[in-house]
Structures are given as structure tokens and as C-alpha cells.
């Protein structure tokens, strides 16, 4: 059953800005990744889902309800982490959370306590004095405390340290196991790779791909930077018949699509001192995805 449906959503801000004919749907119990570089239209799409913007063309629904007309009803069962955290003045984290609980007309504090412990957050500090990571944690608690069935998370891990990022991933996977539906936006493939089964990639306001993470990974070409002891051994290494993209002093950049074994066996013959796999940009990943699809 599809929980979230976006059809032909368009909003033209002029000069090529905006979103154009965006369509996708998210099934119940699915973690759906929404990938795109900064300024590609992720947040604009999410604002439509949240009912902040009225669709100029097209439509979007959550749970069968129109996101613009029924936004207040949808919010009953929705948790949201905004891309930019902005709270009220002069409130401590705890005051804010209890304000939100009462504002939402929750009868209890819900999951607040458990979530604060999970993220090791002391919410007694004033929101203004909190670091970016702490604010992000407050935002996470506010989104999950009422235990909704649908989540819209706009770059939810920004500002979190790697340990907290993993805690967050655990939380999201647990929620998925409980049958929750999650839309998660990000500008890093590595982040959605760990959680999502399907992703939509948006670029310049248009969806360029909607596919499973596995399909994207299969198309992915990995780069490894191998460091050798000397420049001589590096140039000899480069002549072993591997696909080489660059040789710089004693560093060799190797491109590997499927045959990682060959690289390993060659590496065994040489005095390798380091191996490093740089993160690939989204652009590279979908360039490869398209390149792979065509050939």
C-alpha cells in the first residue's frame, strides 16, 4: 500500500529554479531515500508534503489525504525533522519539548525520556546556547516523541557525530521494523545506502532516477587510491593491466567495477603502504548510473 504519493509536482521559481514534474510514491514500511545536491529541490518537495507550499501543478498526498488541504490532519500522524533547526527564543530544550507535546495535545510526554537517553542529550540547556549537534538531537526527539507512523526527515543527521549518526540509523531501522514509513533526504549516497531500499535522485529540480539502492550500487564504480613505497614501484604497479585513472608520485588511483579480486592479487605483489577509498560525489554516482545503463 502506498502511503505517500507525489504526482507531477511542479513549482517554477523562474531562472530554472524550482521543481518540475516530480513524481514518486513511497510504500508502507519503506525507507525511501531522497538524494540530491544542495539546492536541487529536496526541501521544496518536502515543503509541499508538509503543506507549507500549495502545489502550483500536480498533487501530493499522505495516507490518501491532500497535503495542502488536510495538512493539520496529516500532522497528527507525522514526524518531521526540518532541514534548518529554528526554535523559540528563551526556552530550554526540555521546555521546548514539553511545549511541543502540549501544543500537539499529547496526553503524556510520549517517548521523550527514552529518546533523550538514547541520544545522550541533556536538554536542560537553553536552546540558544546549544551546539548544532545538540539542536539536531532536540529536533530528532521532537519528531519521534509522539510515535507517528510516517516520518519526513530532511537531512536528519547533519551536525551529528559519527556515533550519534549510527544511533540515529539504528532508530530509523527499528521504526522501519515496526512498519513505519520514512522519507529521508540527504546529499550523501553513503548515508542512505545504510538505511534505504529505494532512492529517488533529484537534480536541478527534476528526478533523474528512482531505483533500488542495490541497482545504484551495482552501477557504482569504485575508486581506490593505492599508496606504494616508491615512485618506481608505483609506475610498475600502474602497468599491471588494471584500469588506472591517475598516477601521482607514489599514489595510484585505480578504478574497479566488479573485479576487486584482481586488484587484491596485484596488490599482494607490491609494497603497498596504504589504501584509501574516497567518498564519491552524488554527481559521479549518477553519471556512472547513467553511463552503465546506456552501455
Amino acid at each position, binding site marked *: 500500500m502506498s502511503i505517500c504519493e507525489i504526482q507531477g509536482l511542479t513549482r517554477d521559481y523562474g531562472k530554472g529554479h524550482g521543481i518540475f514534474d516530480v513524481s514518486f510514491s513511497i510504500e508502507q514500511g519503506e525507507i525511501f531515500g531522497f538524494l540530491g545536491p544542495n539546492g536541487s529541490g529536496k526541501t521544496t518537495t518536502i515543503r509541499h508534503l508538509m503543506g507549507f507550499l500549495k502545489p502550483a501543478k500536480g498533487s501530493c498526498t499522505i495516507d490518501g489525504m491532500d497535503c495542502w488541504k488536510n*495538512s493539520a490532519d496529516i500532522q497528527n500522524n507525522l514526524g518531521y525533522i526540518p532541514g534548518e533547526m529554528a*526554535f523559540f527564543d528563551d526556552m530550554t530544550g526540555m521546555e521546548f519539548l514539553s511545549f511541543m507535546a502540549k501544543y500537539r495535545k499529547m496526553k503524556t510526554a510520549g517517548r521523550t525520556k527514552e529518546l533523550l537517553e538514547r541520544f545522550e542529550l541533556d536538554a536542560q540547556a537553553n536552546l540558544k546556547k546549544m551546539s548544532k549537534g545538540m539542536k539536531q538531537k532536540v529536533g530528532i526527539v521532537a519528531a519521534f516523541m509522539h510515535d507517528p507512523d510516517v516520518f519526513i526527515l530532511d537531512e536528519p543527521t547533519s551536525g551529528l557525530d559519527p556515533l550519534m549518526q549510527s544511533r540515529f540509523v539504528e532508530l530509523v531501522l527499528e521504526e522501519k521494523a515496526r512498519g513505519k514509513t520514512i522519507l529521508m533526504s540527504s546529499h550523501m549516497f553513503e548515508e542512505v545506502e545504510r538505511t534505504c531500499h529505494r532512492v529517488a535522485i533529484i537534480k536541478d529540480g527534476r528526478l533523474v532516477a528512482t531505483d533500488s539502492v542495490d541497482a545504484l550500487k551495482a552501477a557504482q564504480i569504485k575508486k581506490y587510491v593505492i599508496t606504494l613505497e616508491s615512485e618506481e614501484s608505483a609506475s610498475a604497479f600502474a602497468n599491471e593491466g588494471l584500469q588506472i585513472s591517475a598516477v601521482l608520485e607514489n599514489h595510484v588511483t585505480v578504478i574497479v567495477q566488479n573485479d576487486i579480486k584482481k586488484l587484491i592479487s596485484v596488490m599482494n605483489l607490491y609494497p603497498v603502504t596504504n589504501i584509501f577509498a574516497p567518498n564519491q560525489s552524488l554527481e559521479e554516482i549518477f553519471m556512472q548510473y547513467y553511463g552503465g545503463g546506456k552501455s
Partner: protein
Amino acid sequence: MINWTLYKRGIQGSWKMLLIFAAVITMYFTIIVSMFDPELRSALDEFAKAMPDLMAMVGMNPASGELISFMSAYLYGFIMLIFPMIFSILSANKLIARHVERGSMTYLMAAPVKRTTVTFTQMKVMGTGLFVLIFYATVLGIVVCEISFPGELAIRQFILVNAGVLCLQFFIGGICFLSSCIFNTSKYAVGVGAGVPALAFIIQMMSDAGKELESIKYATFFTLFNPDRIIAGEADAFWGMAILLVGAIILFWTAIVVFSKKDMHI
């Protein structure tokens, strides 16, 4: 229609500002009333004689030697117009536009609370503030007069003048609130919300200052509040109050509709 959690929060955010305004009003009331001298004409009347144009410009133009006329001239021509107006300007911006500009409106929207409920609640916060401020001034005026000049103040008329000022301030509040609901940045919300009533007030001051400019009084809504005619019990003064009140309802209603339909980039 109203979210009490948000209302409580709004009141908590307003009371300090209210306290300051109440203190300023208290100061003016006690000083001005103490200057009233039924026998010898007051010092302020001397000023009015010496510099009639200047005093008329700031609305200080006593009609008779009665305490109520004295108060209406020296308190309800400037102080009780300007201070509640400043409260409206600051409060309207703080309740809506600033939340949109800063992005904290996100959290008010990302909850099962309708936009109309949010604006209606914020309007109530502002309305409560204005009511409290003017109610306080009414009580204060009566108390100060009864202590200094027992039995001199025509209390019924004084209450009516305050009711008139309340209608006027709701109308001004409506302008500020509408402006705050239309614009997404404090700069424009305050610019228009303060600019329109300020301009209307300046026109009022100019029309009071000279006979040749008197006809421009029809270009300002301040003309609809005429304390002297309220005291005299003239029907047109009460019609003016009614028009201001209806105008206020229309302004607030428009503000709520505008906000419920607008796109928010938060």
C-alpha cells in the same frame, strides 16, 4: 479554534513588555493628573495659550475646565494613542512574522494545529495585551483622580473614552497584524505595520495644527476616535467607535485568511 498552549506561551512572551508600557502610562497619568488645577487653570493651559499650534499638534487642546476634558486632552490625544500602538507594532511582529522569518513557524505548522487556529490564537494574545493595557489605564485613571480630586471625574464618560480608545487600538492592531501575516520578513512587517498608522497619526496631527489643513482629517482613521464628542455624548462619536470596531474585525479576519492561504518557505 484556540490552542491554549500557544496562548499561554504568547502571554508569557508579552507580559514584560506590558509591564514596561504600564509603568510608562502610570508615570504619565500621575504627573498629568497632578497638574490639573480646577481653580487656577492648569500650567498646561498656559502652554496651550502661549503656543496654541504646537500644543494642538500633539492633540493637547482642552475643551473645558473639567477634569475629564483635561484628561482627554492631555492623555487621550497622544499618550494613549501612541503607547498602545507601539505595543501592537512590536507584538504583531513578534507573534507571526518573526516566527516565519526565523523559521520557528516550522514547529507551529508541523503539528496537528490548523493555520487558522495559530493565527486566531496569536490574535487573541495581542487582543488580550491591548485590553489589559487599556483596562489598566482606565482603572488607574479613576484611582488617581479619586485620590487627588475625589468626585471630580465623570467616571461613566471616562470609561466610554477608554472604550473608544480600545476600538481605535484594535483597529491599529488589525493593521499591524495583517501586515505581519502578509510579509515574510520582520523588516516589511514592521515597516508597513508601523508606517500606515504612523502616517495616519501624522495626518491627524497636521489637521489639528491649522485650519487650512483641517479637511485632511478625512484622510485618517484617527478622526473616528473623538474623545471630546464621546464625552459630549454625540451620536457620531459612537458611530466612529462602531466603524473602528467593525474595521478591526475585518482586518483581523483578512489577516487570518491571508495567512491560511500563503506559501511559507520555512
